[in-house]
């Protein structure tokens, strides 16, 4: 089992959801955050002072999947979030040692979906 974690731009979140659904992945968790990367931030002015805002809004999407779904999940996210412009974000894949469905207490692969 793997945990696929994507840091994406807020505006693509609905697209990512759609693509995940399309890839038969219907379970995921979302958290709001901010991030810093190569993307040049934007010019903000406040009281006449311009600053470069380099901490940009990001959304974290966590998807736990079985091995055979990892690639599907990654591709779905890529399809949805890739614009080719700096700032598109990253996908991190980590090993999942165990997964428990709280409702039933089921463990392992069958608890993922």
């Amino acid at each position, binding site marked *: 089992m793997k945990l696929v974690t994507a840091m994406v731009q*807020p*505006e693509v979140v609905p697209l990512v959801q759609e693509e995940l659904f399309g890839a038969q992945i219907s379970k995921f968790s*979302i958290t709001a*955050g901010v991030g810093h990367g190569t993307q040049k931030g934007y*010019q903000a002015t*406040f009281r006449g002072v311009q600053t470069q805002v380099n901490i940009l809004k990001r959304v974290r999407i966590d998807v736990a999947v079985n091995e055979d779904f990892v690639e599907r999940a990654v591709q779905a996210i890529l399809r949805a979030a890739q614009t080719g412009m700096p700032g598109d974000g990253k996908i991190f894949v980590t090993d999942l040692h165990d997964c428990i469905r709280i409702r039933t207490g089921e463990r392992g692969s069958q608890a993922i979906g």
Partner: protein
Amino acid sequence: MLRRIPLIGLAALLLAAPAFAQDEGGASTVGLDTLFVLVSAFLVFLMQAGFGMLEAGFIRAKNTCNILTKNFLDYCMASLGFFVFGYAIMFSEGNPFFGTSGFFLVGAESAADVPLWAFWLFQAAFCGAAATIVAGGMAERMKFPAYLAYSFIISAFIYPVVGHWTWGGGWLAQLDFFDFAGSTVVHLTGGATALVGAMILGPRLGRFNADGSSNPIPGHSVPLASLGVFILWFGWFGFNPGSNLAVGDGEAISLIAINTNLAAAAAAVTTTFISWILFGKPDLFFTMNGALAGLVSITAPCAVVSPAAAIWIGVTGGFVIVLGEGLLRIIKVDDPCGAFPVHGLCGIWGTLTVGLWGRESLGLAREGLFYGGGFEQLGIQALGTFASGIFVFLSMGLVFIAIKAVLGLRVDRMEEIRGLDMNEHGMESYTGFQILGS
């Protein structure tokens, strides 16, 4: 200010000599009326804050700064535009369609028994209200420069023309068309503009699906929106009673005030129950817009109907807005704050109710339909409101098309997704708050 008196005392004494001379008795009628009109103007001004909070609460956080900036500036533009051109077009003699003298208020005269400056301020605040209604209907996607241009044009030209017809001695006034405080003149003008504007702009991204179904886009702050409604209701106590322009013996303004209140309350209760029955839950959106529906509906007839009729006008106004919301979905127009149903449709409805429940004994030219006056007044009302609405719809449609050609009307797709705050103003509305959802 003790010592200020010697300074300006001379002028004051000359102007108000009899008032200062005696302590008991002697308050001048014009003084009392001016105070009344000024306080009313201040309340109408405060409606600008009400509109701002309401509209901000009904849209998403990412466009909040944008709509509030529009809100400030449309009032400022209205103040200046109505100073330079608007008042002259609206209140000077001229022809049945527009006034032709008194630009920059030079040589302008008050159309009431209070000083010009007070009358102007009251009217300018009305003009600002008509302008700002539109912000809600075109919210979350309209370019800021386009909005500035629009708000100057409506305040300086379009609103004053419609106003001239009814309140400036124009052709509708001559037909006995009756719109006491502006269901048509103010609200329908704003509402029809919002409709045509929203049609030309097109719906917000994601509002309607390919299959024709629609997605609600909930506003980001219920407390802001409800504060806005309370402030608007409060301001309406300036809007309607103030339109009497004189205190007199207090009878007329008292009637207007109670009617205003009862119509709002009745409409809010009505829409709450309708939404409860239709949609299974009492929907605060309808409660709030219901109150506004009642207020808009009673605006035209408030001086010429009884309190019991005011309740009926509120109840029926409540139905109008629920129907109007459905209509918007059918014609696939995206009006984020419901500006057209509230101000447009209830504006029409309110104007028509004059012909239904209006009383001759309260100053109307003839009895309304329900009191045996027949269809005559109702016909005049229908003519006036439809003529005004169509004029506004068409002329503002042209204005928006022209603005679109010159300045562009709609922000680009990416700006809309990211929010107008960031792209048009370089500012966030809630710095630091974690907000999910675009």
